[in-house]
């Protein structure tokens, strides 16, 4: 049936990574959509059951199709205004106050003139 060739294993590993990233994004999206925390817990467990229902599928092509379906439904349900941590890329504080390049020194003499 499924020979443990390197290509097959590499493909399965790539699929597992896609599934993990998809689950991560879907969970964060659920957190964005759920206003109250108890709603989030409910929705998160529903999401987890949806992922777990397909846990034992072995056929690679079916797995690919399921992942594609999952990503399509994730793209459909993406929140328009997600919560991004302020200093992360896309947040409001991102590169707000970048550190100045090293070696630059500002000398404050307040316009003091040396001609007295």
């Amino acid at each position, binding site marked *: 049936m499924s020979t443990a060739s390197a290509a097959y294993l590499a493909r399965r590993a790539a699929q*597992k*990574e896609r*599934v*993990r*990233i998809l*689950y*991560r*994004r879907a*969970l*964060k999206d659920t957190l964005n959509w759920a206003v109250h925390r108890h709603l989030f817990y409910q929705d998160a467990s529903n999401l*987890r059951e949806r*992922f*777990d229902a397909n846990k034992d599928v072995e056929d690679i092509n079916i797995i690919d199709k399921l992942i594609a379906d999952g990503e399509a439904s994730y793209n459909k349900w993406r929140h328009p205004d997600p919560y*991004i*941590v302020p*200093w*992360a890329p896309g*947040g409001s504080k991102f590169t707000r*106050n970048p*550190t*100045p390049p*090293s*070696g*630059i*020194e*500002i000398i*404050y003499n*307040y316009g003091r003139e040396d001609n007295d």
Partner: protein
Amino acid sequence: MAAAAAARATVLKHLRVAVAGGSLHGGQRGFPWLLANSLRRFSEEVRGSFLDKSEVTDRVVSVVKNFQKVDPSKVTPEAHFQNDLGLDSLDTVEVVIALEEEFGFEIPDNEADKITNIKMAVDFIASHPQAK
């Protein structure tokens, strides 16, 4: 006049890049060290500060212990999520998201995939300047 200049100096001082540490502060102005230390903290808020590693480990371990699917007695600072604690790969994702919420910062997706045991999580958090 001197008081106004001193006030301006203290306000503007936080813009100064801490190049050589003490030599600039003490030599040029002779400000009291108390003032300089408080201003140094203000400017570090911009750059962020690294958290203490033992404190990070304690908080990470407490977060993992509060996880429902984990046996609290098995959690040690050297535990691997999937091998030692018997978690699924999706559970690992959930734990990483819980750590992000605890420390209040964001991990990019490709980095989050690589965190598989507590030690790596502690290293990542301790080396991230904005981890609160």
